[in-house]
């Protein structure tokens, strides 16, 4: 148990010491909201600002970047550099490596969300959730979402053959999901087929769950399903966690192909 914490601490240290990563990962959602908040200054309706809508997408994007993108790129690179092979040669229990990654992802996710919410509140007058129930929803949607993303990131890490090809494999996937899941556009303004495709993947459901937190109750009927449908959000994200977990357990590779 202690070993897992130490591993997490070192992962966080490594993250904080690579300046570009810190800048891009932590500030990215905040920069996005700066751009969007400045472009869409109007209201989405009923006195609700656009910022209130887009912040949900930015939070979800941030969680996806921290969990999915960073791991799906970092793990193949570590595999290429032989870090994984070296760890495999030690008595370190295998779960410790993943515990370290999970702690790092959690650390980044919390920090970047706090930065994002702070910027959005101070500059664009974002209204934070005003009830305990909404904060609770915020918490479980984020936690379940980041879990699904993290597991998908680990599962996806087996796809890239080399560390160098990893960003090329991962970035388009992340970008397309962002476009079709209602991060950059109001989801219901997207073509129906696109909404259907997006509904397969976790990002759409993370956004929807977060809209239940940041938009008023009265906006529920504007959702594609006629309500925020939180049970379904939980269900889809939960299924993704399970599927990705099974993929992790069955496909994770510690060594490169040429290592046999």
């Amino acid at each position: 148990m202690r070993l897992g914490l130490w591993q997490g601490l070192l992962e966080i240290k490594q993250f904080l010491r690579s300046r570009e990563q810190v800048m891009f990962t932590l500030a990215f959602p905040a920069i996005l909201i700066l751009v969007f908040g400045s472009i869409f200054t109007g209201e989405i309706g009923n006195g609700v600002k656009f910022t209130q809508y887009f912040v949900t997408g930015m939070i979800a994007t941030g969680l996806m970047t921290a969990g999915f993108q960073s791991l799906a790129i970092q793990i193949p690179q570590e595999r290429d550099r032989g870090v994984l092979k070296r760890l495999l040669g030690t008595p370190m229990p295998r779960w410790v490596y993943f515990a370290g990654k999970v702690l790092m992802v959690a650390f980044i996710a919390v920090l970047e969300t706090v930065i994002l919410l702070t910027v959005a509140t101070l500059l664009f007058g974002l209204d934070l959730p005003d009830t305990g129930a909404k904060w609770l929803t915020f918490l479980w949607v984020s936690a379940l979402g980041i879990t699904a993303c993290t597991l998908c990131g680990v599962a996806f890490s087996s796809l890239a053959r080399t560390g160098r090809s990893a960003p090329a494999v991962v970035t388009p996937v992340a970008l397309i999901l962002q476009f079709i899941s209602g991060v950059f556009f109001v989801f219901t303004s997207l073509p129906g087929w696109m909404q259907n495709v997006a509904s397969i993947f976790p990002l759409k459901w993370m956004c929807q769950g977060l809209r239940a937190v940041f938009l008023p109750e009265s906006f529920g009927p504007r959702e594609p399903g006629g309500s925020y449908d939180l049970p379904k959000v939980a269900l889809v994200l939960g299924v993704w966690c399970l599927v990705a977990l099974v993929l992790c357990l069955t496909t994770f590779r510690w060594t490169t192909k040429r290592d046999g």
Partner: protein
Amino acid sequence: MSDSAIEVDGLRKLYGDTVAVDGLDLTVRRGEIFALLGPNGAGKTTTVEILEGYRRRDGGRVSVLGIDPAVVHGKRGTSTDPTARRWRERVGIVLQGTGEFDELTVGEVVTHFARFYPGADDPARVIDRVGLSAKTRARTHTLSGGQKRRLDVALGIVGRPELLFLDEPTTGFDPEARREFWALIRDLARGGTTVVLTTHYLQEAEALADRVGVITAGRLIAVDTPQRLGDRDSALATVSWRTPEGSWESAQSATPTALVAELAARFGGEVPGLTVSRPTLEDIYLSMITT
């Protein structure tokens, strides 16, 4: 407890249709330094990685510290068997060019690895032993090639292994660093650690190894002490000297002492430019792998 650290009997490994290791037999005694020599592609690294539990084999029997490394490897190379973990605690591995932890310091990495082992050595002492004390607070990506290699060795020995694998450990070392490294390995062996070393430096094998084994085409073709490998000790000696006319002459002899005595008599004392030499380990090795 058996007095062999490693026993290999008829080891086979195929990559597709290619036979990488073809019926290899090998015994490494406890406490000895054993050097594996062989050209690239002869099956050295494959053999060692099977012994380390990194690869599966296709045939033969293998026992490393009394355990079959296939158990440690498990189905997908990541056995969670407690036996595997205890075995890993007793085995130190220094691979060829292993991954760095770029943004961490030497001290942090060694200290962290020490946490993996119940009987770990003091990290500061290990760092000192590999000669990196001055770099304890340096990030690993700032180290030179030779320093990184020493860090690799530090991570391999921090758990105080009974058996240490070193795969080409001194590649990129300058001569002085290499000698310091040899002293460290001798010191470990004196402390009872069994060392299995692969190297391309014949001089290194000669300086360190109690016994050397030569692998070609997936088989161990010779095992002996560096002094006796390939009948080196009984090979003809070459005696060279300068004639009174100033040209060089040399003769091969099974009885060089007699020849030198004869020369001494002929010259009436000192023989100008006299050398007596036996084939070097490198000569023997090259003749072995080319025939």
